[in-house]
C-alpha cells in the first residue's frame, strides 16, 4: 500500500514540477518571440514615421513610432521633384513585368523538356544546366561579354541574361516529374503534340509552382540595383528604383559624416538629402512588397518545400 501511494506521490510531485517548468518556459518563450517580432518590425515602422515627418524637424531625432510634425513634403518631393526616381520606378515596373513573364515562360519550357522521361538528350541537357549552377565566369568576363554583345547601356541587360536560371528550372522540373505520365499519354493518344501537352495539360497543373517562381523572379527584379550600377550607370534613362535609393543612401551617409569621420551634428544641418526624403523613398520602394506580402507569402514558403531544396 505505502509503496503504491509513494509512487503516486512522486508522480504528482513530478507533474507539478513539470507544470511550473512549462509555465516558466512558455512565458520566456513568448517574451522572446514577441521581442523578435518587435525587433523585426520596429525599424520599418520607424522609417514610416520619419517619412511622414517634417524634414528639418527630423534632424533632432527622437522620432519613434509616430511623426512629431506631420508633413507630406518628402513624398511630394520623391514623386514630383526627382526625375531619377520617376524614371527608376518606370524602368523597375517594366523590368519586373517583362522580366517575370519571359523568365517564367523560358524556365517552364526548359523544365518541361527536362521532365519528359523519354526525351533523347535528357541527361546531357540536365548536366549542361546543372553545371551552370556551380561554375560561373565571374563579374569581369561577364561584363566584357555584355559589352561585346552591346547589352551594356541598354534595357535588355535586365531581361535577357537572367532569363533562364538553373535553380528555378530544377524546382519546376521536380514538380513536373510528380505529374502522372498517364495524363500526357492520354493526350498524346488523342493526337496532341508535345507543345500542346505543355500548354494544355502540364501548365494548368503547374499553377502553384509557376506562381512561386514568378514571385521569386518578380521580387528579384524589384530589388535589383547592382546590374543598373554595373552596366548602365552612365545611362540615367535605364536607372532602377533601388539604384536611385542607393544614391540617396550614399548622399545621406556622406552628409551625416560617417564617410569623412566628421562629427554628425555639425554637418547634419546642411544635408544634401534630408533623412525624411530617403525614408519616404524607402517606404515607397518596399510598399508593393509589404502590401502584397500577406496574400502571397504562402507561395513563397511552398517554393522552398516544393523542390526540396533551398537556394
Amino acid at each position, binding site marked *: 500500500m505505502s509503496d503504491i501511494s509513494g509512487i503516486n506521490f512522486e508522480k504528482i510531485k513530478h507533474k507539478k514540477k*513539470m507544470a511550473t*517548468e512549462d509555465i516558466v*518556459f*512558455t512565458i520566456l*518563450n513568448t517574451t522572446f*518571440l*514577441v521581442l*523578435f*517580432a518587435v525587433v*523585426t*518590425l520596429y*525599424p520599418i515602422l*520607424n*522609417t514610416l514615421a520619419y517619412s511622414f515627418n517634417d524634414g528639418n524637424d527630423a534632424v*533632432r*531625432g*527622437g522620432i519613434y513610432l509616430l511623426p512629431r510634425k506631420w508633413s507630406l513634403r518628402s513624398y511630394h518631393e520623391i514623386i514630383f521633384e526627382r526625375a531619377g526616381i520617376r524614371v527608376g520606378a518606370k524602368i523597375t515596373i517594366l523590368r519586373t513585368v517583362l522580366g517575370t513573364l519571359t523568365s517564367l515562360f523560358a524556365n517552364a519550357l526548359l523544365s518541361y*523538356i527536362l521532365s519528359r*522521361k*523519354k*526525351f*533523347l*538528350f535528357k541527361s546531357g*541537357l540536365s548536366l549542361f544546366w546543372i553545371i*551552370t549552377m556551380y*561554375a*560561373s*565566369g*565571374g*563579374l*569581369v*568576363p561577364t561584363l*566584357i561579354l555584355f559589352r561585346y554583345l552591346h547589352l551594356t547601356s541598354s534595357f535588355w541587360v535586365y531581361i535577357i541574361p537572367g532569363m*533562364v536560371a538553373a535553380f528555378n528550372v530544377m524546382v519546376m522540373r521536380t514538380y513536373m516529374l510528380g505529374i502522372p505520365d498517364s495524363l500526357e499519354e492520354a493526350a498524346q493518344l488523342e493526337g496532341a503534340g*508535345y507543345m500542346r501537352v505543355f500548354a494544355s495539360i502540364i501548365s494548368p497543373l503547374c499553377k502553384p509552382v509557376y506562381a512561386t517562381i514568378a514571385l521569386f523572379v518578380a*521580387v528579384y527584379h524589384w*530589388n*535589383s540595383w547592382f546590374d543598373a550600377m*554595373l552596366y548602365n550607370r552612365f545611362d540615367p534613362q535605364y536607372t532602377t528604383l*533601388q539604384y536611385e*535609393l542607393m544614391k540617396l*543612401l550614399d548622399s545621406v*551617409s556622406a552628409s551625416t559624416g*560617417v564617410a569623412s569621420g566628421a562629427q*554628425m*551634428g555639425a554637418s547634419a544641418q546642411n544635408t544634401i538629402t534630408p*533623412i525624411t526624403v530617403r*525614408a519616404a523613398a*524607402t517606404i515607397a*520602394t*518596399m510598399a508593393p512588397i*509589404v502590401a502584397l*506580402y*500577406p496574400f502571397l*507569402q504562402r507561395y*513563397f514558403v511552398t517554393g*522552398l*518545400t516544393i523542390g526540396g*531544396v*533551398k537556394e
Partner: protein
Amino acid sequence: MENSILKSKRTKEVDINKPKLTAKEFKRQWILVVISAVYVIYGVIFYYLPLFGWIIAFQNFIYAKGIGGSKWVGLDKFKFLFKDKKFLMVIRNTFCMGALNLIFSTVMAIVFAILLNEVKNRFFKKSIQTISYLPHFLSWIIVVAIVHDALTSTGIINDLLMRFGILKQPYQYLGDPKLFWGIVVISNLWKETGWNAIIYLAAITSIDPCLYESASIDGAGRFQKMLYVTLPGLRPTIMILLLMNIGNVLNAGFELQYLLGNGLVQNVSRTIDIYVLDWAMDARNMDYSLGTAAGIFKTVVSMSFIVIANYIAKKRGDERLF
C-alpha cells in the same frame, strides 16, 4: 524531403524507360530537340562564354584590342595578386565574415525554429512566423538604410544606451572597425533568420511524434525533449544545409559590405567581390585581367570547399551532396 533526394542520388538510378536514339524516335521528338538546341545556344553564350573568358586572367587584357590582340603574360596577374597586401586583406575579410555569418545564421535559425515550434497557439505562431520572414523580401539597400538609421547619433541604439546611462554621448558605430563584422552579422540575422528557419520548421514537423511520446513516458521535460528529440531530429537537415552553404562562404560578402562600408572601416569591410568590382569599375585603374584573376581564385576556393566538406561528410557517414 531532402533525404529522398539524397537517396535517389546515392543509389544509381537504372532508367528502364531510357529511350534509344533511333531515327523514328528523333523524328517524333524533333520539336523538343529544336527547342533544346535554342537553350543550349543561350546557355553557351550566357553561362559558358564567361567561363571561357577566364583566359584573360593570363593576358594583359585591353578591351579595344580584344582577346586575340592582347598580350599574354602567363601567371603575372596571379603573382601580383598574392603580393598585393590589399588582396590578402580582402581574403581574410571575406572568409571571416562568411564563416561568422554561416555559424550565427545557422544557430539562430535553429534556435528560432525550435522555440517557435514550442508555441501552442496557432494564431500567435503563424503571426510571428509571417513577420519573421518579411525582411527577406526587402532589398539590401533598404536593410542598409534601416541599419544606418538605427545606428546614427539620433538612432534607436544610441537613444536607448543613453537613456539607460550606458553611454554619455552618441557613438559612431559604423565608423568603428572593431564593430563592423558584428554589425554585418546582426544585419544578416535581422534579414534572414525567419527565412532560414522555414526549412528547419518543415523538418521538425516530419519528426516521428512517437519519439516525443516515449520521451514523455520516460519523464523528459519540455527542455529535454527539445534537446534530445528535436535537435537530433534536425541533424540531417543541418548537415545538408551546412554542406550546401559552405561553398557559399566566399559568396556571402558583397551587397551588405559594399553598401555599409566607408573609408573608416575599409580595412575590415572590403571583400573579394568588392576588390574585383574596383578593378572592373574604377576608370583610372581599370584592369580586367586582375579582376578576372581574383574572381577565378574565389571560384576555385569555393569549389574546393564544397569538395572537401563533402569528402569529410562521406568519411563520417553523414549526409552528403554527391
